[in-house]
């Protein structure tokens, strides 16, 4: 099931097409990739522009394959990829503007972070001076560990070292494949803050992840991939709203939950009410209808409502729902 219609991304259509970025810098058009008989990515058309876009999906969904086709590491079996108007597999000059953080624990363990960042700068033909290297290392807050061999780093620190190396050429387009893997909460906060900064600077940032809560902290533009196809795309809330046939869950706290529960059951849009934790969890077919009915009921019964919060407008719930459909 998809909640969107896939169309070729065009700037004019951007406002309507959740797969199309408003100002596309990176365009994947009808890309497919198969390895032998296994189809990893099937006919995906989407575009990316300034800001953060998350690719979301379970392991093996095709996120990494799509990212690798976008960067030119893999050539599409069908379709085409354009980065700043160029095919990265044919014109390597485009790599001056790209930074890539691979998913794998792919680092040169014998180098220090400083050496890795300098190597990246030299390979990118950009400023490899001490000042430039220090600046890239400072952006990921790794000054204290910059001169230790990467082999001695924790996985989270390796991720930050890779991010520093990806930033040293001041890229306009960053591809981050599971960049938060192995990072502790403090490191994640640093990295997420950094990604927001990069997006605010007008860079195109694609982040792939299966850590749903963190994706929500990073961006609200999400492309969900399942079985190599786009399952949903757009704003997280819009995706959830588009699945209108799926009941919404709302948490309501009130001073008299039992009376409120009885009254709510008379509202046609309410499908079920569960008492617990000093409040209610209401399942409704229409958030708007519930939102209209609740104040009326509260006034009518003299109930004080202290909390009204949709509890499944989250990637977790969207993700679970999409997975259940897949099964």
């Amino acid at each position, binding site marked *: 099931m998809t909640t969107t219609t896939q169309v070729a991304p065009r700037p004019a259509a951007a406002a309507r097409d959740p797969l199309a970025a408003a100002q596309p810098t990176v365009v994947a058009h009808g890309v497919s990739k198969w390895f032998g008989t296994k189809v990893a990515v099937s006919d995906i058309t989407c575009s990316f522009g300034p800001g953060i876009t998350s690719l979301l999906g379970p392991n093996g969904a095709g996120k990494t394959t799509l990212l*690798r086709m976008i*960067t*030119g*590491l*893999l*050539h599409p079996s069908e379709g085409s990829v354009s980065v700043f108007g160029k095919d990265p*597999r044919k014109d*390597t*000059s*485009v*790599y*001056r503007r*790209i930074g*890539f953080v*691979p998913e*794998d*624990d*792919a*680092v*040169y363990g*014998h*180098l220090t972070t400083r*050496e890795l960042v300098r*190597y*990246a700068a*030299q*390979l*990118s*033909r950009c400023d*490899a001076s001490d000042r430039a290297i220090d600046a890239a290392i400072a952006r990921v807050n790794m000054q204290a560990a910059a001169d230790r061999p990467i082999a001695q780093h924790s996985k989270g620190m390796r991720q930050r070292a890779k991010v520093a*190396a990806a930033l040293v050429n001041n890229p306009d387009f960053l591809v981050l494949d599971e960049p938060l893997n192995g990072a502790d909460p403090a490191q994640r906060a640093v990295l997420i803050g950094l990604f927001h900064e990069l997006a605010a600077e007008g860079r195109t940032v694609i982040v792939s992840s299966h850590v749903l809560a963190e994706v929500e902290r990073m961006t609200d533009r999400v492309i969900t991939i399942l079985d190599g196809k786009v399952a949903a795309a757009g704003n997280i809330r819009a995706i959830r709203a588009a699945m209108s046939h799926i009941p919404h869950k709302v948490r309501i706290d009130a001073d008299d939950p039992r009376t409120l529960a009885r009254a709510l059951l008379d509202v046609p849009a309410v499908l079920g009410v569960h008492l617990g934790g000093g409040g209610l969890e209401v399942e409704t077919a229409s958030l708007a209808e519930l939102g209209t009915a609740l104040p009326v009921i509260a006034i009518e019964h003299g109930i004080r409502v202290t909390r009204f919060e949709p509890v499944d407008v989250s990637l977790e719930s969207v993700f679970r729902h999409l997975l259940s459909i897949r099964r």
Partner: protein
Amino acid sequence: MTPFLAIVRVTARQLAGRSRLIGFALLSLAPAALLLIAARSANPAALDLELGVLLVVPFFSLIIPITTLILAGSALGDERRDKTLSFLVLRPISRLEIAVAKTTAAALVSSGFALFGTLALSGTWVALGGTFAIFPPIIIGATIACVLYSAVFVLLGNILARVTLAGLLYVLLFESAIVDEIERLAGASFWRIGLGATVDAMPSQFPARALLAPLGGWVPSLTSALIVAGAIAIICIAACTLLLSRRDSL
């Protein structure tokens, strides 16, 4: 620093890690150690023959090939295995530059070990009353062999997951057993090409005839060895470039 030099430097460091440095240095010292042992037992008049048969030939036929195939196979093979290849190929540099830099790094490191072994062997030979004139021919031939093995095994490291096994089969089975039986295949044996160049460059006073035996009927001159090495290196680098361009970088 240019991307080419950066790749050469980082690859050379990667190839010459501490354990490899110690292991290959000890292996390269083996001919010198054997010469010392041979000098104690051999007839001094026949020492040049002992050097040739016992030491120079194994130096060319085993030590150089095994050292070089392991190093060269790792130059790109380790990048594929460790999935660091994306770090190299997603850069504004040509695939040709990467292929040449990797081959250069492998040839430099393996030639370094060959230089160390040749110096030890020549120094020991001088200490036993011989002449240092044997050093230039051996290092020239050894370098040619290192370039040949490097070019081929950097390419194979980009293709095969078990490049070291394939290399050992080539060296121990094809070059040693099969070519020994079928002399007309001698031209496909890289160490024989290097050894041929060494024999050709040897001082006339050095009785090189003992070295000729393992070469069979085909003894390349220094010039033809250089031409063959250059041609094979160009073909392998071109193939490696093509593979890096066309093949998915997984």
